[in-house]
């Protein structure tokens, strides 16, 4: 197992390298010029050229890529063109809100969706099943920003239960402010995820519940709860865990919108702002880190399989 983990981590290196080359090339050849944005309307082409030179943007592709790669290998993601701050510092400031939002969303979504999916499968064809599926369809259909606005209007503006926007860093001594800031965004972001997981859970559970060993368990007098949660759910877990891993990418995309709606200073907003400004080092740094995280999540999912299905060995 350990050797497998090491092999998988080593295998991420070429993946991340290809991502790095791809994103660097894409940004190099994409239209837009940060020097022109900085210089503003009143600048002459000579002014723009001087700013471009001072930022090192006038150098050839190969030189810039080699220099950036060398920096990355030394743990340095470069310096933001606009703020002149180290990219690692900027990402460091933003990582906690995004990770907090995603973890809370995952927690809320899994803890809601799996029981809902199990319930729907158990009560297949009843009004409960239809209600759960209606929630699932709604979750897929309503855009995350609409859900966000509705939640903010009802629970923040009208009822004044939660803040409209912002983020409070996590504190062990008083985690409530952190939680109050994140509840609404996590609910908004998690709705589509709930829908996805609930549907997959239901479908997989229905398949498992029709298996012979479930019928045998029932015949032996095993109760409904042990059948559902001990025998069926564990065997249905592999596809569910897979879909959670795949959904992680969707969560990253959704986090960008949610962070904007609730003014959470996360990585999503950082990279969107950087794209609009053409702040290349930030875009490259964030994409590189996210691709690495995504690879690690997939690795984690693969390892989780072994917990749920002992037949899987690496």
């Amino acid at each position: 197992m350990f050797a497998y983990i090491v092999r998988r981590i080593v295998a991420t290196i070429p993946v991340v390298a290809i991502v790095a080359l791809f994103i660097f090339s894409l940004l190099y050849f994409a239209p837009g010029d940060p020097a022109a944005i900085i210089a503003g309307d009143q600048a002459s082409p000579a002014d723009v050229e001087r700013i471009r030179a001072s930022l090192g943007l006038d150098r050839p592709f190969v030189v810039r890529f080699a220099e950036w790669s060398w920096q990355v290998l030394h743990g340095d993601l470069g310096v933001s063109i606009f703020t002149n701050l180290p990219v690692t510092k900027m990402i460091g400031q933003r990582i906690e809100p995004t990770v907090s939002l995603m973890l809370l969303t995952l927690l809320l979504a899994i803890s809601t969706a799996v029981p809902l999916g199990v319930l729907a499968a158990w009560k297949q064809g009843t009004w409960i099943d239809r209600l759960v599926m209606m929630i699932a369809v709604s979750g897929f259909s309503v855009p995350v920003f609409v859900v966000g606005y509705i939640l903010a209007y009802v629970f923040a503006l009208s009822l004044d239960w939660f803040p409209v926007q912002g983020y409070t860093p996590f504190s062990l001594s008083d985690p409530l402010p952190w939680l109050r800031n994140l509840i609404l965004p996590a609910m908004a972001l998690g709705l589509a995820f709930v829908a996805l997981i609930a549907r997959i859970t239901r479908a997989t559970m229905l398949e498992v519940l029709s298996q012979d060993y479930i019928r045998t368990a029932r015949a032996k007098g095993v109760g409904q709860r042990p059948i559902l949660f001990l025998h069926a759910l564990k065997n249905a877990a592999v596809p569910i865990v897979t879909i959670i891993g795949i959904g992680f990418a969707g969560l990253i995309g959704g986090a960008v919108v949610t962070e904007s709606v609730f003014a959470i200073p996360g990585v999503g907003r950082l990279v969107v702002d950087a794209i609009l400004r053409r702040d290349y080092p930030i875009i490259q740094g964030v994409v590189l880190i996210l691709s690495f995280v995504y690879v690690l999540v997939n690795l984690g999912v693969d390892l989780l399989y072994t917990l749920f299905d002992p037949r899987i060995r690496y």
Partner: protein
Amino acid sequence: MKRRTLLQGFGASAAALAAPNLAAAQGSRVLKFIPQSDLTVLDPIWTTAYVTRNHGFLVFDTLFGSDGAFKASPQMAEGMTAENDGKLVRITLRSGLKFHDGSPVLARDCVASIKRWGARDSFGQTLMAVTDELTAPDDKTIQFKLKKRFALLPDALAKSSSNFCAIMPERLALTDPFKQVTEMVGSGPYKFKADERNVGHLVVYERNAAYVPRANGVSDCTAGPKVANFDRVEWHVIPDGSTAAAALQSGEVDWWENPTGDMLPLLRKAGVTVTVQDPTGLIGCMRFNQLQPPFDNPAIRRAILGAVSQEDYGIAIAGDDTSMYSTGVGVFTPGTPLASKAGMEPLLGKRDYDKVKRDLAAAGYKGERVVLLAPTDLNVLKMQGDIAGDMLKRAGLNVDVQAMDWGSVVGRRVNKGPIDKGGWNVACTFWAGGDQLNPAGHTFLRGNGEAGGNWGWPNSPKLEELRNAWFDAPDLAAQQKLAQDMQVQVMQDVPYIPLSQTMQATAFRKDITNVPNGFAMFWNVRKS
């Protein structure tokens, strides 16, 4: 655990979580403000971004300030003397000025700051062009030896728009003007808190306890005493308009610099003060690439004047509230001393597209493709692009509207080449009215062609001649006459077309008072 105990625990947690939001219950010593955009660049000399200007005026002070009538008066300066027929100007600094690092403000700091600013700003460049020598003969005196009298020297140093003459310590001011200064040490009423900065989220300033406001004068815009009434000013970057409106209504923030037009009725209904503090507003401009056909032909550009409906632009941007936009806008900001209607007939009156088509044909337009750069990610620019595309099509031009983000537009528009090599023909933008008060800061009035001009590269020797004469004008009456002549010339050479003036509302809670007129300034503001 018993079920009842568990439920009680859940109930207590939920109650704590959903306790009424107490964010508003901050002390009156903290001002929470939503800026127009994220503050990414700190150096007000390095960029022309208006948000950086607003930040700059918190941190840096200026030698002269400018009041609501655009009249310059001493700010850091104690006074100014002129000798030798106005060619030897000495400015003395007032006592007690200190930078945020505790060091005294010396004349050599001011000299270095003026030189750095003069390398980048168009008004500053004009001042430096007539300056033979700029020195600091002692710690209190800044001395200009000029080639000729330059009556606008205080106005230049009092410039209150982008690229204002921010005074910083010499060690920072010696930085290459084309490189950013990121250490924010000024002598203004508020200090920048670098340790609390979270780009894209939060910018914090704290009161500069060592700041000594002017003892005399009337506070107005950047002139007169600047009193810092808050211990902290926090800028909360909220990119989404609906969220910003909700945050203002709920009391999580005190002041939203530029609420979006669709939110104004909602904010008024919620009891928020919605007002226009800056009467100069924003003025839209249509710019042509004059190096490439068809707009290298002045007759074609003149024909387009007949197609422009300023009202369409005003309504598209500001809605149908006529108090929020103006038409009949010439090259100088309406309501300011140089504004007039001279030569504006082509822009006024009923729009006759058939006549425009005939004029275009007579001017030699043969249906060439015209590339319009249309940004889609900034509201005002998006509206301008939509209206311009429709207007040019109705005028009979073969318009290719190329939608892209703003970052792509600014990269694209410096391309002087033909459209089949990535060039462009027409694009719209807007500037603050404060940048179009006079020829000094009004870059689109330049006619210095490909060599010196900015994007569009109009060539108009007559316009340049009038501009140079304006700097030498002995009094306001002479300036106004030259300004009228310039406007007439603009309608002939058409370096650009003014589109409309739209007002930018600002919104703050009822307990906020004494907000200065002009752009977002934070001195003298109070919170009850």
